[in-house]
């Protein structure tokens, strides 16, 4: 019962190590660095190879394929640490989705980046109809909001009949990188008879998305946690009217409420990750619950962080705004809170 909440010594060590690496090697300054570059050049491949050496690129890939052969609990622990510093790595696209659908030594080694081309509208819907088709072994269609699309080597394209693997740099693929507020690597993609390298059954799609959603929820938990810690420190240090602003009861109560939300989010995120590893029958609603709550909590914690910081909270000088932007972008990725609340209820039959 409680194993889903108590890390094993190995897991605890993994989390500690990941946090130390992320803080040292991928602090928030890394995102600022990425932001200064063009929208089509926001993945640091050398850095990703370093991550791969820690086993992160192949975290879900079997040991036979050069991976770490670990589970979603471990992947979630890494994602949480990446979230703490808004680390702009292709972890979700390559390690989680790629690692689930197209595991390989190249992927586990950090040499191959993978992107999933799914959405055709600005709204995520795993069950939405799809216009993209395969004709004469070529993909025809247009996809939006492709995470790490500008950097990918391989694109997994959801078409009407199958998941098609295409070469991102091959003929018939047009990549339009998007300059988004969270400064992540995202693109719209057009396929004009892009040659199909391989296909996978559509049956695999749900599993990849559910895993990515859970890992994203963990990332969001890490971000919310970090921004709340920053806010707490500020409440203790910043003085107004001769006293620390953290002594104002209205702010205290709001801080205490955020704390509660964070604790509840932590519980549901952990439970969702553990349920995936255990192939539990309620894994799907738990993941939806985790994503819904992580979205609400991240947006709450970041919006309150801005308000509690006052004027400097809205300046670009502080990192809080970067977290707030990520909170919104991450909320929408793989379905927003409203989408997942609906899904949570539908699975339960109401």
């Amino acid at each position, binding site marked *: *019962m*409680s194993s889903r*909440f*108590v890390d094993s010594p190995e897991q605890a060590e993994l989390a500690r190590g990941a946090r130390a690496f992320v803080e040292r090697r991928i602090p928030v300054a890394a995102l600022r660095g990425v932001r200064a570059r063009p929208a089509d050049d926001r993945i640091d491949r050398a850095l990703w190879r370093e991550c791969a050496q820690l086993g992160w690129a192949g975290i879900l890939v079997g040991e036979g394929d050069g991976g770490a052969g670990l589970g979603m609990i471990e992947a979630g622990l890494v994602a949480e640490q990446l979230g703490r510093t808004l680390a702009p790595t292709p972890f979700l696209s390559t390690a989680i989705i790629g690692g689930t659908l197209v595991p390989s030594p190249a992927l586990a080694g950090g040499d191959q980046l993978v992107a999933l081309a799914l959405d055709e509208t600005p709204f995520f819907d795993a069950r939405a109809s799809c216009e993209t088709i395969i004709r004469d072994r070529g993909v025809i269609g247009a996809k939006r909001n492709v995470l790490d699309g500008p950097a990918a080597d391989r694109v997994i394209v959801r078409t009407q009949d199958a998941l098609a693997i295409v070469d991102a740099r091959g003929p018939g693929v047009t990549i339009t990188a998007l300059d988004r507020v969270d400064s992540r690597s995202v693109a719209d993609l057009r396929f004009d008879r892009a040659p199909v390298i391989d296909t996978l059954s559509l049956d695999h799609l749900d599993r990849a998305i559910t895993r990515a959603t859970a890992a994203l929820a963990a990332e969001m938990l890490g971000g919310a946690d970090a921004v709340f810690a920053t806010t*707490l420190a500020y*409440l*203790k240090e910043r003085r107004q009217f001769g*006293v*620390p602003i*953290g*002594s104002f*009861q209205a702010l*205290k*109560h709001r*801080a*205490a*409420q955020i*704390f*509660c939300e964070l*604790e*509840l*989010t*932590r*519980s*549901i995120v*952990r*439970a969702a990750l553990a349920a995936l590893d255990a192939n539990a029958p309620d894994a799907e609603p738990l993941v939806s*619950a985790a994503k*819904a*709550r992580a979205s609400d909590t991240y947006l709450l914690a970041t919006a309150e962080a801005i308000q509690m910081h006052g004027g400097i909270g809205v300046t670009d000088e502080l990192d809080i705004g970067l977290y707030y932007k990520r909170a919104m972008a991450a909320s929408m990725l793989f379905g927003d809170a409203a989408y997942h*609340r*609906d899904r*949570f*209820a539908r699975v*339960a*039959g*109401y």
Partner: protein
Amino acid sequence: MRTPMAAGQEVWGGRRRTFPSEDAKLWFERCVERGYTVPSWPVEYGGAGLSPDDAKIFAEELKRIGARLPLVSFGIWMLGPVLLELASETQKREHLPKIARGEIRWCQGYSEPGAGSDLASLSTRARREGDDYVVDGAKVWTSHADHADWMFCLVRTDADGPKHEGISFLLIDMASPGISVRPIPLISGSSPFCETRFDGVRVPAANLVGREGGGWQIAKRLLEHERTIISVMRDAAPEETETLPQQFLRAGSPAGLRDRVIQAELDFLCNRLTLERNRAAPGVASSMFKLYGTELNKRRKELRVLLAGTGGLEWNTAAKEWLRSRANSIEGGTSEIQLNIIAKRVLGLPD
């Protein structure tokens, strides 16, 4: 005695004790004989003298076979542990066996009309006159005071010094002249709560527990036991016979309430998981559970009324529990107090 206990089926003991059934009476008497009403208390005070480990095994075994508690009381849960720890030998021998045997039923005299969240500002006076204290004042929220034989009570023995240091812990026989008890009707209807007034009540000084002026420390110790009990009682609360989603579907899935039902379910799940996580790896503040649990319960009970529609407005429907739930975030420390505690103790925010 192996079926779940419904509300009103408990055996509370006391001089005027009643039993819901012959079986309950027999089970009670058999347990009293063996000290099983308070398994971990020493034999000389009416217990079974079990070691902590044995007591745990015993409790698990009882739970496994679904056995009911033979006796429930504030004496067992709250006063007893404190007397064992802090009372004189004479006091222990006088009071503990009667608690164990269910002969005396106790109530708690803490809150006062004027004090509220600021418990330590209590003003019920006990002034020394010879071998007695003379008590004047009033206590509120004394659960079951109208059925209790004795009260453990916080009184002010010194009105001049710091407010926490003038408080003493006194045991008072409810049969003493000058005590009057009045039930307090709530917005949800009748309740176990009473107001107890003291008008020149004489209490032998031998009934002082600990030293004069040392009552606040005892009170705090006792409050810790109270919190444990509240959580025990909560665990023992009967399961909902119909889940919120079931009620939602039965009500014809009113679209305007769906989001609120989902959110309440989601929060319920997250809260349950957090309780579970805390049991696995303690650390999260109990204040958080008090806060979140009661606020969530208020929301859920309100939803039950909304889902019942106008039918839920009649007395003895969902309405009663809805109205009762409003007290949850006040009794046992208001939500505001819990937020203060979290801010101060957990988050370390300054005063």
